[in-house]
C-alpha cells in the first residue's frame, strides 16, 4: 500500500471522492436489492452499481494509475462501456421470464397482453419468495 503515499494531495482528494461515491452507490444498490419486496422493484437497485457505481470506481482507477505511472491510463474506460452495453442483455432475459411467468399465472400486477387494463397496479406488499 506504499505507492499511495506518492499520490499528491490535489489528485488524492478527487480520486478518493470518486471511489467513495462509486462504492457508496454500489452499496446502496445492494441494500436495495436486499430490502425491496418485489422482483420488479429489485431489478432497479443493482443498476446503481452498474451505472455510476461502476463509473465512479472506473474514473478513480483511471485517475490513480494515470498519476502514479505519469501517463494516461485509459483502458478502464472499456470496462465501463462493456458493463453498460451488456447489462440490458441479462436484464431483459430476467424481466421477460418474470413477465411471462406472471402473465401465465394471471398475476394482476403485470399488464395483460390483450386489451390493456387502465392502470398497472403497484408492487405487491407481501412480495414473493425469491
Amino acid at each position, binding site marked *: 500500500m506504499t505507492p499511495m503515499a506518492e499520490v499528491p494531495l490535489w489528485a488524492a482528494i478527487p480520486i478518493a471522492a470518486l471511489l467513495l461515491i462509486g462504492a457508496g*452507490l454500489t452499496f*446502496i*444498490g445492494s*441494500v*436495495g436489492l436486499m*430490502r*425491496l419486496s*418485489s422482483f*420488479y*422493484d429489485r*431489478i*432497479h*437497485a443493482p*443498476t*446503481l452499481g*452498474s*451505472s*455510476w457505481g461502476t463509473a465512479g470506481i472506473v474514473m478513480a482507477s483511471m485517475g490513480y494509475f494515470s498519476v502514479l505511472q505519469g501517463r494516461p491510463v*485509459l*483502458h478502464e*474506460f*472499456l470496462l465501463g462501456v462493456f458493463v*453498460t*452495453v451488456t*447489462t*440490458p442483455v441479462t*436484464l*431483459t432475459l430476467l*424481466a*421477460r421470464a418474470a*413477465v411471462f411467468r406472471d402473465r401465465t399465472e394471471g398475476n394482476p400486477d*403485470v*399488464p395483460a397482453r390483450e386489451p*390493456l387494463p387502465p*392502470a*398497472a*397496479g*403497484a*408492487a405487491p406488499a407481501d412480495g414473493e419468495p425469491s
Partner: protein
Amino acid sequence: MSRLFPYPVLAAGLVLMWLVLNGFTPGHLVLGVAVSIVAGVSMSALHPAKPRLRRWDRIPQLVAIVLYDIVRSNIAVAALILSNGRHGRRRSGFVEIPLTLRDPLGLAILAIIITATPGTAWMQYDARREEVLLHVFDLVDESAWVALIKGRYESLLLEIFE
C-alpha cells in the same frame, strides 16, 4: 480494401481498443490490425444489416443528455432506497410506450439508455404492436414517462437513425 475491412468503423474501433489495452508498439499495431481483419471478415459472414447513421452530429447531444440523466436518476433512486421509498409511499408500476423508432440498432441503444438509467427497466419490446413495456421504480404520472422517453430520447434517435 473493402473486402479486408467490410466494417471500417468496427475495424478502427478494434485497433484502437487493442492499442489501449496493450500499449502502443509497432508490433501491437500489426497484431491489432490482424485481429480487426479477422473480426471484420467473420462479422460479414453473419450478414448483419449495415447500420445507417444519418446524423452523426446529434450523437454528442444524446450522450450528454443520457449522462446527465443517469447522474440525476442515480441520486433519485439512491434517495428512494435510503428513505425506504418515501416512507412506504413510493409506487412502482408498468408503463407501455408506443414507439415510432423501428431501426434495430436504434432500439438496442434505447434499451441501453433505459437500462443504464436507474429507476427505469426495459421489460420487453413487442415488434408487432411497436410498443415497449417499461417498469418504473417511482411511478407518479404515466403520461409524463411516455412524453419523457419519446421526447427526450426517441426523437433524437429517430433523427440519428431514420
